[in-house]
């Protein structure tokens, strides 16, 4: 029962908090691309890979009291902060999770901006293409983000680092 929710809770239990919905979306996508078996399905949207399933599951976990969500008012927007709750941890105790440790991945990703994670997840979305084509694709679909060649190189290094963690 709720195995996919439990996997996500394992993710939240591996970090103190996740700040930002966009960041959360991109982090789970990047982890999927690092062979972590999350089942949420993604499609490409305006801001990169996005999963409606993930959004709904997080809502469900908040409604069940497994995850806490805090809305903070920023200058021009709202920001959301997520943490696992005590009953979330208790629920998690009923599961034997077949997930690799996620702490190091999450720490690396938490240290980066959501703009950077948007770039990395977009690069991973086009992973099947040759590298030059990926760069062209990133410029084409992300023209407003003004990513530089250095950003993209940094993105490749970051992907390599994440995949080398285990």
């Amino acid at each position, binding site marked *: 029962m709720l195995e996919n929710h439990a996997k996500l809770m394992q993710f939240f239990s591996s970090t103190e908090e996740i700040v930002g919905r966009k960041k959360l979306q991109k982090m789970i996508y990047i982890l999927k691309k690092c062979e972590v078996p999350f089942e949420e399905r993604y499609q490409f949207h305006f801001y990169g890979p996005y999963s*409606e399933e993930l959004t709904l599951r997080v809502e469900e976990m908040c409604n069940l009291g*497994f995850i806490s969500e805090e809305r903070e008012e920023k200058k021009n927007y709202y920001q*959301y902060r997520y943490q696992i709750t005590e009953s979330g941890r208790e*629920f998690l105790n009923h599961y034997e999770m077949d997930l690799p440790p996620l702490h190091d991945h999450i720490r690396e990703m938490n240290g980066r901006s959501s703009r950077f994670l948007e770039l990395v997840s977009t690069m991973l979305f086009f992973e099947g293409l040759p590298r030059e084509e990926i760069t062209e694709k990133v410029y084409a679909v992300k023209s407003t983000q003004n990513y530089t060649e250095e950003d993209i190189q940094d993105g490749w290094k970051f992907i390599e680092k994440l995949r080398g963690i285990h």
Partner: protein
Amino acid sequence: MGYRDEKLSEEKVFKDPVHRYVHVRDRVIWDLIGTSEFQRLRRIKQLGTSYLTFHGAEHSRFNHSLGVYEIVRRIIENFKDRPNWDDDERLLCLCAALLHDLGHGPFSHSFEKVFKLDHEDYTQKILLGDTEVNKILTQVEEGFPKKVADVINKTYANKLVVSLISSQIDADRMDYLQRDAYFTGVSYGHFDMERILRVMRPMEDQVVVKESGMHAVEDYIMSRYQMYWQVYFHPVTRSAEVILSKILHRAKELYESGYTFKLKPTHFFSFFAGQPTLKEYLALDEAVTLYYFQTWMEEDDPVLSDLCDRFVNRKLFKYIEFNPNSQMNQWMELYKLFSKAGLNPDYYLVVDSSSDLPYDFYRPGEEEERLPIHLLQPSQELRELSRLSDIVEAISGKKRTDHKLYIPLDRLEEMSNRSKTKKRIMEILYG
């Protein structure tokens, strides 16, 4: 005149219950409709298992695809000569609209979950592979199939084109809401599409709506909301969906354990084994699937035959509300009790959640999750819809999720009233 611009000598029309007529003048569109890959969509129902709840819901993805094409055709008519609109993209938009659901398989939702497939991958494969559709698109221009694939994949550089087919107010949703309402017979799902089409405006990278059309858009958002809870997420449909996915799981499990089927499920072998080829994928439609379900009713495996009988003859599971947080211990007890009662809990005790059938509610795009609907104000400024509409704000802010426990109540009732196991199960389920 090249193939791209070729027109039929006379306009062809399809009678359509939702849009009255679907108009075709382009030779390319006419040829695409005639391909075997597009005709296959006649054998895939738009609403999967919903026909078991709403008997009228037998319409197909073929109907819907023509409808999306027709809406995009009308939008483009309105966009002609407006700033930001490049009419060279016209045929690309029409092809993408027509072909956007080409990769859907039988009962897509459950099939994709059980066999870990994605219909979008197959849409790409049909567009880019050795298919009739690909031949026609290639005749338009070398590289044209890739352009169509990119639009459908939402990775085409011109985002305005993408947003016609896929955004929070797009032709896809506008067609299926009205079509699903029509065929299910419900009174939700209606909105003034003509009005929305009239007030849509092309901007640099998205379609926006003039502020004066806000109330028509509110109606559209309301109908999305109501159709979700009243039709798409109907608990009886979910019961059918639960049984369907359990059938597929069971058949796969039996295949993997070396079980000998009375009738070899040859169409399913590649699905059980992993990635089916494009040819194998296209060969399995709903008619073939239902044929197997009917033959599996005679199988020796009692779980498979029972589940197939339930699906074919509509003997669905009953449901109760369930809270996975407060009722976790009860669930664990039920799991043991079901085993004791000879009901395999992996097949007969199923929790189903609202996220198992994801439906995209309107989201105001906070923190740039996804692009919201923008209203174009007389000052030419853009404002997000829920900032101006109290109705939309109330819906998009409200989180409503739901979990249900599905069980074969008939099997429980058949048990002796003296059985302690039955008594305890009933106590937990119904108090």
